[in-house]
């Protein structure tokens, strides 16, 4: 049997990389306050599920993300086929995400699970932005509340965040 290695420690790797490049150390988010918690109100099989993803996916005809602290987001209707989805991001290898957007934006996957009864239904809209926003304050105070407001408006039961 093959021995599995520990997960890659990206915090440590980034520290090494930044030091080698002579950059100041990257300051990772460290949450200290108690983690918020809400119990499920209904079973998964009856829940409306939304995807919120930070892999830089946009839909054809939408304006693409730019690579300098872009705090904007894209609303993607849940019936959008994978063929209309695109991926752009400054910091990860996009080869596979462009070949199959489900790698970072599992909307098509979620639709199949809804059809199979695993979840109640797919929320009407998914939300997409491009990570690598260096201001955590902007994410916390601008971006997250703007998306949360729409998730509430869509009466979403469960939100699945898919970072890259």
């Amino acid at each position, binding site marked *: 049997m093959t021995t599995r290695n520990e997960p890659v420690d990206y915090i440590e790797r980034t520290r*090494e990389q930044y030091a080698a490049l002579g950059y100041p150390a990257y300051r990772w*988010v460290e949450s200290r306050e108690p*983690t918020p918690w809400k119990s499920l109100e209904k079973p998964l099989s009856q829940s409306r599920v939304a995807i919120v993803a930070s892999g830089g996916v946009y839909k054809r005809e*939408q304006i693409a993300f730019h690579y300098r602290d872009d*705090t904007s987001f894209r609303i993607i209707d849940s019936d959008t086929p994978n063929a209309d989805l695109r991926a752009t991001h400054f910091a990860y290898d996009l080869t*596979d995400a462009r070949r199959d957007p489900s790698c970072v934006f599992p909307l098509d*996957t979620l639709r199949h*699970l809804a059809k199979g009864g695993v979840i109640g239904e797919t929320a009407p809209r998914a939300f997409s932005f491009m990570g690598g926003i260096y201001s955590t304050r902007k994410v916390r105070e601008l971006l997250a509340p703007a998306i949360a407001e729409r998730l509430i408006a869509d009466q979403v039961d469960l939100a699945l965040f898919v970072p890259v």
Partner: protein
Amino acid sequence: MSLSSAYSITRSVRPPRAVFLDFPLGHTAGKPGEPELNRDILADALAAFETIDQPGMIVTLPYVWSDDDGWKGRALRETSASAPQDGRNARTATPQYQCEDDAVAAAEAPACASCVWLESS
């Protein structure tokens, strides 16, 4: 709930619920061209909504990327001591389309109502 392929970052951020998939960056939700595998992954991830019973818990999924873990040694190591290199793209403030055709399609489409800006650029 967060579905993540970066364990240490997720542990530091501490989302209420998290599922860890030990795949390379850019594959948080699965592999290209493997819809059945990706459905299994997502179904198992979503099941954690019902099994995680305390805030901050991270459930590790059993899927493995390949027979060997060689990719882990290479991740984020474009930099060598002799030739330091930042493997990322330049941080420009113009839209970065996947292909030129997308730029044309966006220019011809009506003003994007589904593009939401939170800051004036």
